[in-house]
């Protein structure tokens, strides 16, 4: 498709460890449209962070290695760029907000110094211009008395404030894509609501595309346009957000949504739990990676790993599963 801002094909990332090779991401393909918010959901170890780290080439090599794949961004392949080129993309065109705002800010530099750095490096501003712009950015993310706070150090900010600073930093060079890796997981609910509201406002004002990684299906429901569900290094379901929650088709997604209690729950029901544990793949599986935990699993599931294919006529809704969970029979 031509209108894709980012087009990832067959991304495969592995890590060499003492126990063997871990297949963290196994040939996944997805696209990101302009101005779209893409949610990436999955449990810890399912490969969601590794996917975006691979795109920005932030995978520590060794032990990690991107084996295969392309990631087209404005006609260029992010995975084949030289270090110089990718450094230009990082921070200025694609920027990232990390989970833990305390460890991703430098504790010995002031907030001002850290905000000015990308502006001077990527936009070519001088110190004075950068300082003025930094104050504007802090104001944009809703930090009161922004000018005075530029001289403060990260420890003088609370968790929610630090995450705002991280967002200001990520937005400083007006990126086309903002990648948010569990940005609200470390925060309290009331602060989380503040941050999500802020990101929604900025998205509408600045019109950037967002990849939002989380394990919280609740956060994604109110924020994303389209959702990818990951499991064991594969995308196992992809759908527009409303379709996914109204009509989940993969047994894992069904289980995940069923295992969540809702704050607007009407009656007490037993939670539908998924037995067993998420896998760590030490080899490319010959069966469906979810089969050992799946209550729909049939013979075919143990013989061949299902590809990601559209559900019926709905081209936008795709699952990687041999079973039609509506009928319990094999698809097609």
């Amino acid at each position, binding site marked *: 498709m031509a209108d894709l801002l980012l087009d990832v094909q067959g991304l495969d990332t592995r890590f060499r460890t003492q126990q063997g090779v871990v297949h963290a991401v196994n040939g996944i393909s997805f696209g990101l449209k302009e101005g779209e918010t893409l949610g990436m959901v999955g449990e810890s170890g399912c490969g969601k962070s590794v996917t975006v780290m691979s795109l920005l080439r932030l995978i520590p090599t060794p032990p990690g290695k991107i084996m295969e794949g392309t990631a087209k961004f404005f006609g260029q392949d992010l995975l084949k760029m030289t270090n110089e080129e990718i450094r230009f993309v990082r921070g200025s065109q694609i920027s990232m907000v990390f989970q833990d705002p305390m460890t991703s800010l430098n504790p010995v530099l002031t907030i001002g110094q850290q905000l000015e750095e990308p502006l001077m490096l990527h936009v070519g501003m001088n110190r004075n211009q950068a300082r003025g712009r930094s104050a504007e950015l802090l104001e944009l993310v809703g930090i009161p008395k922004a000018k005075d706070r530029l001289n403060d150090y990260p420890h003088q900010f*609370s968790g*929610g404030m630090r995450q705002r600073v991280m967002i200001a930093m990520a937005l400083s060079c007006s990126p086309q894509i903002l990648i948010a890796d569990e940005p609200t997981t470390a925060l309290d*609910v009331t602060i989380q*609501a503040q941050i999500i509201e802020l990101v929604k406002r900025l998205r509408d004002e600045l019109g950037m595309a967002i990849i939002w990684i989380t394990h919280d299906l609740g956060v994604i429901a*109110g924020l994303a346009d389209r959702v990818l569900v990951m499991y064991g290094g594969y995308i196992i379901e992809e759908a527009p957000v409303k379709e996914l929650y109204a009509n989940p088709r993969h047994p894992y997604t069904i289980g995940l949504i069923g295992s969540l209690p809702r704050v607007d729950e009407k009656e007490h029901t*037993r*939670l539908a739990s998924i037995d067993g544990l998420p896998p760590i793949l030490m080899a490319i599986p010959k069966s469906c990676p979810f089969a050992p935990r799946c209550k729909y699993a049939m013979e075919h599931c143990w013989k061949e790993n299902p590809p990601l294919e559209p559900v019926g006529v709905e081209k936008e809704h795709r699952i990687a599963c041999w079973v039609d969970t509506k009928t319990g029979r094999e698809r097609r």
Partner: protein
Amino acid sequence: MSSNNVLMHVEDLVKHFPIHQGIVIQRQVGAVRAVDGISFDVHQGETLGLVGESGCGKSTTGRTILQLYRPTSGSVMFDGVDLVQLKGNDLRKMRRKMQMIFQDPYASLNPRMTISEIVGEPLVVHQIASGKDVEQRVEHLLELVGLSPSFANRFPHEFSGGQRQRIGVARALALQPSFIVCDEPISALDVSIQAQVVNLLEELQQQFNLTYLFIAHDLSMVRHISDRVAVMYLGVIVEIATRDEIYLSPLHPYTQALLSAVPIPDPFAESQRKRTILQGDVPTATNPPSGCRFRTRCPIAQAACAESRPAFRELKPGHFVACHFADQFV
């Protein structure tokens, strides 16, 4: 589910952690007022949910009740005895009846002990069983929490987070307690594993008629598991009521904001919601605001809120609120 038999009565419980300054001559320069005068009952056989944001004193409350921290003042009546007055052997005897499940299943199991040593330790310490008897009881306990008895000789690092939390549950059950404080037992676990542990806790409660104090910051999970819910903010309980009362008609502005901030896993419901977004952060517990502690972030605060601390009033039967202006929401 809940009856009116009060199992535990907490009255005006206070826990301040002193802050010292000076190396040779130490003097107290202040205190973190972690828990600052809370009162509530826990009924026989119920689950009381205790929710609040990080730093609001909910874990301190749990630990102070069990006398893991000795309270600064106040009383905790359990089975007709004031735990605060007990010491030494008398207190240890009472501890058999109340146990705790900790938040972090990685930090709360000794890595050098085998599973059977961990689960059997309470039995040995309290001289309830010895030798072969311990082994048998450990096997039985492991089966109860859904683990294979053949795991008994393994070490904690061989288990996943969910399995470790099951071991923690088995240890808490070893002494056949009537009361268990669950301090964020599922926060460290993956979503699909959380449901497994919560279901286990519910089954065990029915089987052994356990009473839980369930501490959590996940309001959806608290709604799922609790019979009654207490909401804490900066060291005080601001609202306490039955589960449906709290979630369907919250009376305290903080509870209202907290509930509206919780995301619902349903895009349609999300788009229909009206949010109350609180401004700013939680103030520090060393120097909390005068009067009502929530007033600095409260959408309906008035001058009176700064002057006097709101009384804990029963505005509806069984529904207590600490707010001067909550009557408008009844």
